[in-house]
């Protein structure tokens, strides 16, 4: 029964995904994703923000298929730069530089790239099936959620975001609170009162997510990258001998499997995603290895595991977004933005009301992965050439696309002014060693939590104990409390710091 239903769903998704138009959007997403993945300093969040206005003219299916492709495409592209140039094309491929670049210096760039792509492909396929399997039961569970359950779930999500953030826990707390406070700016939907608008009419509707994200991630990154331009020194622009040896394959199988499972699990966690997955997979692989001291000298396991993990996580992080309507990271927040542009309210009802969209997007991920392996292996030479564009020119282009992208959202020049402000603010945060991701999650979840808090209080006639009387809500809160207690333990903190240090 379950299997038959799943097959029927996948069949429906297949019929949507295989239409020529949607295949083209999928390809577009994969190509853009690979390009920005290859380019250091251009991330998927900023790119998706740039393209959100463009997706307005597309049908909803095409828009979301393309946006999704950008995220997992970037995971493929990021490894290319990491291996060939010793620069992470994406922050999720930081650890790939450790062994990947060493392999390239030993003339084994080809096998490293091939294993990275094959591992990603395998992980992508597994993650697609995982989403298809996990989505229906989770959606059914989510349909029973009451307002206090949602509130507590979001609390748990924010706690995860804090625990999983890099650097100081206190600072991550600060970012979440500040993000939530920024999210409250504008008209209070419940009472119509204005909050923190300073009489500026552009703030009455609140701060837009896109200007905030683009300022903090896009503009601030440009400022930081122009400060210390990283020299790209290509090992060689010619990659020969892509095929890994039999020994490479044998050594990679287990790391790919472990990376896929670990990445898939970490991707589901709120605040998790590709970056965390790749770091953890590398650490795990070192633990499993009989020769951990050799990591960093060109071990193929050190490429296979994190590259599989980041792709698996990139895809499974769609699960909470698709089933609960809760973004687990900044990229998923962009996906939610994309849905809202098309008038789709994210949440458990999407699967029932728009099954074609839901399953079409999932199946398109498999097609996307297939396209990506073709794009990345035989065509690798083209992508490498992208790296010859110097950052000083790239920065100008990115800045222009940020400006015009934000402008086109509402044809409002004032929103462009906002990205200037948030850009400086983002640079300030970087200098003070704050992570911007928890800020963005707080910004998104803050207003949602307020809505659920009010609904809860209204339903319970002002009794706050209801949050611990509902079993589900209690579960989430206890979990959140345990996580927080856990992170304060001294040895856990040391382990966490060590894990992020790698």
């Amino acid at each position: 029964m379950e299997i038959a239903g799943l097959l029927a769903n996948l069949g429906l998704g297949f019929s949507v995904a295989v239409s020529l138009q949607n295949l083209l959007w999928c390809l577009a997403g994969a190509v853009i994703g690979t390009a920005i993945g290859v380019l250091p300093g251009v991330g998927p969040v900023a790119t998706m923000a740039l393209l959100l206005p463009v997706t307005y003219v597309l049908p909803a299916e095409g828009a979301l298929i393309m946006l999704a492709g950008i995220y997992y495409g970037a995971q493929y592209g990021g490894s290319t730069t990491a291996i060939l140039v010793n620069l992470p094309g994406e922050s999720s491929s930081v650890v790939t530089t450790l062994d990947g670049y060493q392999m390239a210096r030993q003339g084994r760039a080809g096998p490293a790239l091939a294993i990275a792509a094959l591992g990603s492909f395998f992980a992508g396929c597994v993650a697609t099936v995982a989403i298809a399997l996990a989505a229906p039961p989770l959606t059914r569970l989510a349909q029973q959620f009451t307002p206090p359950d949602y509130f507590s779930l979001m609390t748990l999500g924010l706690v995860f975001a804090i625990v999983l953030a890099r650097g100081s826990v206190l600072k991550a707390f600060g970012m979440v609170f500040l993000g939530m406070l920024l999210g409250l700016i504008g008209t209070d939907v419940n009472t119509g009162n204005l909050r923190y608008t300073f009489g500026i009419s552009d703030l009455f509707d609140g701060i837009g997510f896109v200007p905030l994200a683009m300022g903090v991630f896009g503009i601030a990154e440009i400022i930081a990258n122009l400060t210390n331009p990283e020299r790209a020194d290509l090992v060689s622009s010619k990659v020969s001998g892509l095929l890994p040896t039999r020994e490479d394959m044998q050594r990679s199988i287990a790391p790919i499997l472990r990376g896929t499972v670990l990445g898939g699990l970490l991707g589901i966690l709120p605040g998790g995603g590709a970056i965390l997955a790749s770091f953890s997979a590398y650490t795990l692989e070192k633990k499993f290895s009989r020769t951990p001291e050799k990591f960093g000298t060109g071990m193929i396991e050190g490429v296979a595991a994190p590259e599989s993990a980041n792709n698996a996580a990139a895809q499974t992080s769609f699960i909470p977004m698709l089933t609960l309507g809760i973004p687990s990271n900044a990229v998923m927040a962009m996906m939610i933005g994309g849905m809202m542009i098309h008038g789709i309210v994210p949440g458990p009802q999407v699967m029932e009301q728009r099954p074609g969209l839901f399953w079409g997007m999932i199946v398109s991920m498999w097609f996307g992965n297939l396209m990506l392996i073709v794009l990345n292996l035989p065509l690798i030479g083209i992508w490498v050439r992208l790296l010859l564009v110097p950052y000083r020119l790239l920065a100008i282009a990115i800045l222009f696309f940020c400006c015009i992208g934000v402008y086109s959202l509402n044809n409002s020049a004032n929103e462009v002014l906002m990205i200037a402000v948030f850009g400086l603010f983002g640079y300030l945060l970087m200098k003070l060693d704050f992570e911007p991701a928890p800020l963005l999650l707080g910004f998104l979840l803050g207003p949602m939590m307020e809505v659920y808090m009010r609904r809860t209080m209204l339903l319970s006639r002002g009794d706050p104990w209801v949050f611990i009387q509902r079993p589900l809500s209690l579960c989430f809160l206890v979990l959140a409390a345990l996580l927080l207690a856990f992170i304060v333990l001294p040895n856990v903190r040391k382990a966490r710091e060590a894990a992020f240090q790698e």
Partner: protein
Amino acid sequence: MRMSVSQDFAAGLLLLAFGVAGLWIGADYPMGTAQRPGTGVLPMILSWCLVGTGVLLWIKTAIAGSARLTPWAWRPAILITLATVAFALLVDRLGLLVAMLVSMTFAALGTPETRWREYIPFALLMLALGVGLFIYALGMPITALPAGYPWK
């Protein structure tokens, strides 16, 4: 004299400043009742949380110390901001071409690495791309050249 401020002290100050400002401005937001929490409830809670986090960060810095602030990159920070602001102020008044040109030139000035021989053809290419893609292909309602009078 060299000024060197501890990074975490400054970070705590930032959180405290936002918290205090949040409390100050939000002081007269209505609090409502337990059953119908008002506009001011969450802002007040969050502002106090920010104040608390800032103070804890200060205490931690006092006990454990922290890294020094690294020098600011004034040049890119100022010029990239100017580039963004210039685009915002000019695009409606003087059209896309002028806005792009001014904005891109500010951005190019943001790094000492800019080579003008390389920048000029690149800028021309970007101008063509900007007008071709956003005005002709996507049909955005902006003009390429100054339309009418800027003071109208």
